[in-house]
Structure formats: C-alpha cells, structure tokens
C-alpha cells in the first residue's frame, strides 16, 4: 500500500428531517481496498455521494492527492480521478456498450463522434478485464451481471485514482464475483485506491484490507480485515451479536396439508417443467444461481408473466391464475427482487403503499378511509420497526431496507396466506435482516406459508424447512433442512453445466 490519497475529516450533511452525516472521518491509502460497512441508513452512500460531487457537504474537509478539494459536480470529481460504480445500475439502454462506457467523453473526429474508436477502446478494456462482452451490443440486451461488468469497465476506463464500488456483487454470479476480485487485485497493483461498500461479510475478508463502519450517520471505527471476525464487524455495526446458526430441524408440524401445489409449470426458457409442493406453516427455500429461473417461476405462479402450461392447486383446488389480480384473490402475495420497479410506488407515501393490494378494505362509501389506512399502517410500522418519520413519508425517501418492509406490509395488510419472498434481504442491513427473519418465523407460526427465494446460502440454510434447488430453468433437486449443506446445494445448483 502506498501513501494516503484521501482524507475526509468532520464531514457533516443534513437533509430536511435527517442528519445524514454526523462529523464523519474516513481515509484511504493508494492501493488499498477499504470496505465501508453499516446498516442501511447508516450514511455510506451519502458519504460517497459527497465525495463524488453529487451532494454538497455542509461542513468538513476533503483532502485528495495532497490538495483540499470541493467538488461541485460528478463531472468535476470524475475529471479529478474519483469515480463511483453505483448500486442501482445507471445505464442507457438503447445505446451500445461502447457508447455507454464513453458517454460524456466521446472520442471525436471533428464534429463527428468516433464510434469505431470507442468500440476498439472498449474491446481493449474488456480484454484487460478478461471479460467477454461485445461492445456493439445494446445495453438493454445484456444480463444484469454483464451490465454491472460494463459499469465497472466504465469506472476503470476513467483512469481513476479512486474507485468507489457500491454493492458491486449484488447482481453477479459467483464466477463474475471472482472476475471482479481479479480486476480489483489488478487495480490495487496499479496503486488505485478502492472504497468497497458491501453487506457481504465473507467478501470483506477475501478482498479488503481494512473495514470502516458507520452507524446512524456517524463513524464508529476501523478494523484490519484479516485480523477481524464477522462478529467483530457486526458488533461495530449494530452493537450486538446476532449471528445465529443454521436451522437443524424442520418446524413444519406433522401432517400439515399442502397449501400450494405446482405441477409441470412451463414458462419460456427459464421455467421448464417445474413441480413442487408447499405445506402449511412451511418456509420453502428456493436456492440456485442467478438465471436459474427462480424469479421467473415465482412470477409465473403469481400471474405476473404468462405461462405456457402447467397447473396450480391451492388447498387442493385447481385455480386459474392469469394475472396478479387472480393470484392476490387466491391469497398469494409476491415481494419482488427489484422493489423499486415492482414493489412500491415510490412517489406515494407509506400508508398508500401499504394498503395498495386491498384498498377495498379501506373504502368507506366511495371514499378511501384515510384514518383507517393510517392506523393499520402505523401498526405495521411499529411491528416491523420501519424507520420513517410518519406514515405520510414518501417511500422514495426511505432507505432500501425500510422500503422492503413497506412492501411486506402491503402483503400482510392483505392477509395473504401464501407469501413469495424474492431476495427479501438483498441490500438490507444486518439489523433489518434479523427483523425480517423474525417476522417470517412469526408468520409461519400463525399458519401462513412462505416461499423464500434467496441467493445467500447461509440465509437459505438458516430459514428454510425444505429447500428446492433450481438450475437453468429446471428443478434440479430438493433437500430437507436436516440433510442440506452448502456443498450439496451448490452441487445441485451447478448440475448440468
């Protein structure tokens, strides 16, 4: 590691109603990979947005490469050599990969954009990264993983001295994560400083040098990665140890009836002849790699996507689900993986979002009973510990984890008996995760049944009574929780490759 390239001291930032950054310190050495961790709402993203010129700080100093700097726009920061790869993919779908990478700094031939040169440079970039992407492909045609790779390529191509990665591996497969780590090791050798925001404890140990933790807008402390345990980090983040062991025994009572039976479901490439059963009071884990078809299966069951063939039985009766409305009427609720796009109506407030799925219950004559809406919602805000100033708060202003809780509220208010959770704790801090696990357990104790799609194996092992593993559109196997291990799941998830 080289010398200090970045020192942030006493950074303070307040938004209306929220003291987002409270006198935060942070430093980075050249060639260092420095993890930045904390619960959602802790201020990590905000701190980085201040650094990269998206937000303006209220006070504090930033010393970069020996000089005190004040960036007023992302472009300024970029030109100075600080780049960020965002958590939410921000790309231009109708333009090509090469055009996306060089957007804003195109190669020109006089007045004409030199697309040919951009394609060349992009190809070279991908070669250096050992990644196989066609620079002339339209961005919207790529898989999520590949899109993220392009974002990373874009950041690297900036000749940056500091690169900030905000949850970079969220949408990557295991292989792509390895590719990313190779790239990062490469960058380290070039003396580039890397700030790595993540929730994944295992990655911290593998790729980072130091870990800084934030909590509630304040800086808590810094640890050396290789000398710290998961508990050490979690302690700093939440101030308590909540790490629990995997489930050893199924909690489903003997003789529990089958509430949902799916038979020979087919829906395009990603759902091929899938059959399974869900029993009352059960948490059925759905494991598998990205692209294995778990989300597509859920969407087909929920009626969000049309199915080619297959039968669905609820409590023994065959049902015809052609649309989400049918599914909801049959008591099925679905929390999608991309909550911003599919789960919440960001421009509306918490109360409205919560009652959206069953507004009928809140109708008084021809009006919506706002008081009833608010009071019902308030109950859930409390029981789910949703961090929001009030039920009238716009959902867009909440942190990711709290938004997820709002989506959950929507289905709980509807009293759905069968809940499908798709990556329920993605992008959510440890404290909120724990809340959600507790909730899920309570729900199944009450007699509801849950299908939980998750890419985090520890989570799958901890929560499921039974596990269905999918691989490339097919169900490759089923494991009881007693017999399941990470290796067995992984084996089934990669079968047939």
């Amino acid at each position, binding site marked *: 590691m080289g010398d200090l390239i970045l020192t942030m001291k006493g950074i303070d930032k307040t938004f209306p109603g929220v003291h987002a950054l409270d006198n935060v310190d942070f430093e980075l050495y050249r060639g260092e990979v420095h993890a930045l961790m904390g619960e959602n709402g802790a201020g990590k993203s905000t701190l980085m947005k201040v650094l990269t010129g*998206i937000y303006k700080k209220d006070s504090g100093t930033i010393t970069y490469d020996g000089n005190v700097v004040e960036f007023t726009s992302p472009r300024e920061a970029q030109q100075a050599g600080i780049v960020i790869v*965002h958590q939410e993919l*921000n790309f*231009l*779908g109708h333009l090509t990969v090469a055009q996306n990478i060089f*957007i804003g700094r195109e190669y020109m031939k006089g007045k004409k954009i030199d697309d040919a040169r951009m394609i060349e440079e992009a190809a070279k970039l991908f070669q250096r990264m*050992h990644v196989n992407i066609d620079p002339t492909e339209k961005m919207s*045609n790529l*898989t999520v993983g590949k899109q993220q790779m392009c974002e990373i390529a874009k950041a690297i191509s900036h000749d940056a001295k500091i690169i900030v990665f905000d949850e970079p591996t969220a949408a990557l*497969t295991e292989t792509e994560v390895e590719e990313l780590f190779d790239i990062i090791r490469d960058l380290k050798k070039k003396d580039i400083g890397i700030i790595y925001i993540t929730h994944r404890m295992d990655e911290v140990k593998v790729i980072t040098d130091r870990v800084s933790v934030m909590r509630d807008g304040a800086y808590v402390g810094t640890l050396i990665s290789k000398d710290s345990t998961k508990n050490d980090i979690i302690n700093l983040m939440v101030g308590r140890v909540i790490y629990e062991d995997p489930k050893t025994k199924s909690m489903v009572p003997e003789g529990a009836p089958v509430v949902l039976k799916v038979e020979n479901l087919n829906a395009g490439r990603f759902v091929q002849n899938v059959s399974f059963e869900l029993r009352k009071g059960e948490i059925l884990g759905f494991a598998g790699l990205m692209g294995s078809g778990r989300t597509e299966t859920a969407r087909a069951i929920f009626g969000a996507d049309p199915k080619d063939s297959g039968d669905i039985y609820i409590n023994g009766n065959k049902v015809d689900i052609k649309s989400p409305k049918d599914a909801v009427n049959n008591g099925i609720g679905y929390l999608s993986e991309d909550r911003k796009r599919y789960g919440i109506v960001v421009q509306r407030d918490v109360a409205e979002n919560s009652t959206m799925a069953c507004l009928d219950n809140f109708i008084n004559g021809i009006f919506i009973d706002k008081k009833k809406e608010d009071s019902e919602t308030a109950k859930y805000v409390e029981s789910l510990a949703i961090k929001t100033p009030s039920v009238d708060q716009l959902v867009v202003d909440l942190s990711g984890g709290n938004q997820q809780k709002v989506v959950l509220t929507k289905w709980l208010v509807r009293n759905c008996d069968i809940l499908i959770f798709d990556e329920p704790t993605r992008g959510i801090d440890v404290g909120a995760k724990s809340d959600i696990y507790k909730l899920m357990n309570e729900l199944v104790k009450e007699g509801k049944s849950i299908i939980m799609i998750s890419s985090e194996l520890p989570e799958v092992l901890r929560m499921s009574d039974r596990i269905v593993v999918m691989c490339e559109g097919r169900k490759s196997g089923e494991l009881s929780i007693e017999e399941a291990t990470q290796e067995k799941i992984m084996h089934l998830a990669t079968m047939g490759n």
Partner: protein
Amino acid sequence: MSKKIQNTPGSSKKSIIQRLGGQNVVVLLIVLALLAFFSITSPNFRKYSTILSILDYSYYITLIAIGVTFPLITGGVDLSIGTGLICYSLVGGYLVVYQGWPVWLGMIICVLAGAVIGLLNGILIGIMNLPPFLATLCTMMMTRGLGSISSKGLGIPWPTAGTEGGWFRTIFKLNIGDLKLPLGFLWILLLVALMSFVLNHTKTGRYIIAVGCNKEATRLSGINIKTVYIKAYIISGIFAGLASIAYSAIFASVYPGTGAGFELEGIGGAIIGGVSMTGGVGSITGTLLGVFIICILKTGLPFIGLQANWQQIITGIVLITAVLIDLNRNKKKLIR
C-alpha cells in the same frame, strides 16, 4: 476462463417486426402497399400530378416531424409545432406583405421565430422542469394567439408565383417550361441526411438519446442535461420555422386560428416511423417514412371517394396501431 452467460433478452421470440427486418423496413413496405392500393383502385391516382400533390402536402409535415423527433427521443413532446408553424408564417408574412420587407428576410424571421419559441420551450422544460406536455401546450396556445395578433386577424397571402416575391415558392416547386419538379423533396432528403447525422454521430444527438434512455444516468455521467433539453426543443422550433416557409410556399394563404392538429400529424408520423414515446429510440428516416404514410392516406383516400370524416377515422386508426405496437415493444423489454 470466464463462464459466458448468454446475452439474451427476456423473451426469446423475436417480434414479427424484428423478423421482417426492423421497423423501417416494415414502414417502407406499408408505404409501397398503400401506393399500390390507391393506384389500383383509382386510375386517377396514377398520374404524375398526384405524386406532386403528395409531395406538396408532405413538406411541412415532414419538416415538423423531423424537428419533433428530437424532443420525442428525450421522452418529451412538442405540441407547439402546429399552431407554431402557422404563427411563424403569419409573423413573417405580415412583415413581407404589409410592411414591405423582402421575402428572404421574412423567411429568416420565420425560422428565428421558431427558434425563439423553441428556446422558450427548452427553458420551461429543461430549466424549470415543467412537464413537456404542459409547457408546449402553453406555447401552443401562445403561438395561436400570437399569430392572430401579428396578422391582425387577417389571412396572409404570401407573394404568388408570378410576382416579385414569389421566387421563394420555386424552392419547393420548380417549373421549367412544362416540366414541374418537386424540388422540395430534394431539400427534405438533404435535411433527413443531415439530421440523421446529427442524431447518431454528434454529441448533441447522442446526449439527446441518452437523456431519453435514462435522465439520471446521463446526469450522473457529468452531462449538463439542461442544455440537452434546450437543444432538442430549439431544433424542434427551428424546423417548425422551416415548415412554416414550406407551408406558405405551397398553399395560397395562411390563416390565423389554423394549425391545431398539424402537430398530431407530425408526432404521429414520427411514431409510426419508430420513435418511442418513452424515449431513447428513433430514427429520422423512420420519421420520413411514417409521415409519408399519413400523407399518402390523406391524399389517396379522397381519390377513392371516401368522405373527409372517414379519412380522419382511418388516419386515427393507423396512429393508434402504431402507438400500440410501440407500447408492446416496450412491454417486452420490461419482462426480463
């Protein structure tokens, strides 16, 4: 080394349109089919004078369609181009006919007026963040009133072909002896080529597409999106100005209070030609072809005896179909 994951969109079926070679090809085929249909059902359609009529009619619509393609690609819209083009013609025409200004100066005023309104639209939308529909609806009403005021409620007859100022009509219709040449079409083709280049190969065009794809991402890439919007709407305004010249050159007089409805033909032509209402997609040649469908329908339907109101219904159906196809295409993208 790296495990290659297939680059496929969510739906593996290519839409019919894609299989036929893309929207432009389909639209071109429809144009040819329409021409064939009308030629067969009405012998009078097959004359050279009919082609001249179709072209005459097409100039002003094509010009506003080319211009409005740019705001459409940003995900916005410009409703002021219809009453706008009449307004600019009235303003310029008033100066020429009643104040004795030379015709070339009047033409420049037309384009300048368009640029000014375009700039106003750009400021309202790009800087003050008004929804484009609302902002251009306001400028639409403003230009309607403005036109009336400038011409003092009168219709303005720009100088006719034989007279001193009438040379400007020959820009579009050149008569050499008995031969009538639709010179205007040549200029249209040149402008199509030029604006195609601007859209696809210059920064202005590239950023207009980018903003239409994802406004936030473009902003975060360090691009000043305010100027992008302003440029898009100024282009639209300038082309409305050019369209006003075309309209005045072809038609005898320009009357205030008209023009409402042209913008729908221009926008409709662009959408039929493949511009997406959600932004980020569009081509200038596509727009040209889309406008031609509308023009051929408008000229051809009376030939087969259809009364005027049926013409409107049919044009409306064509437009709805185009919009539905556009929406369907976007729906496919969301399913991944």
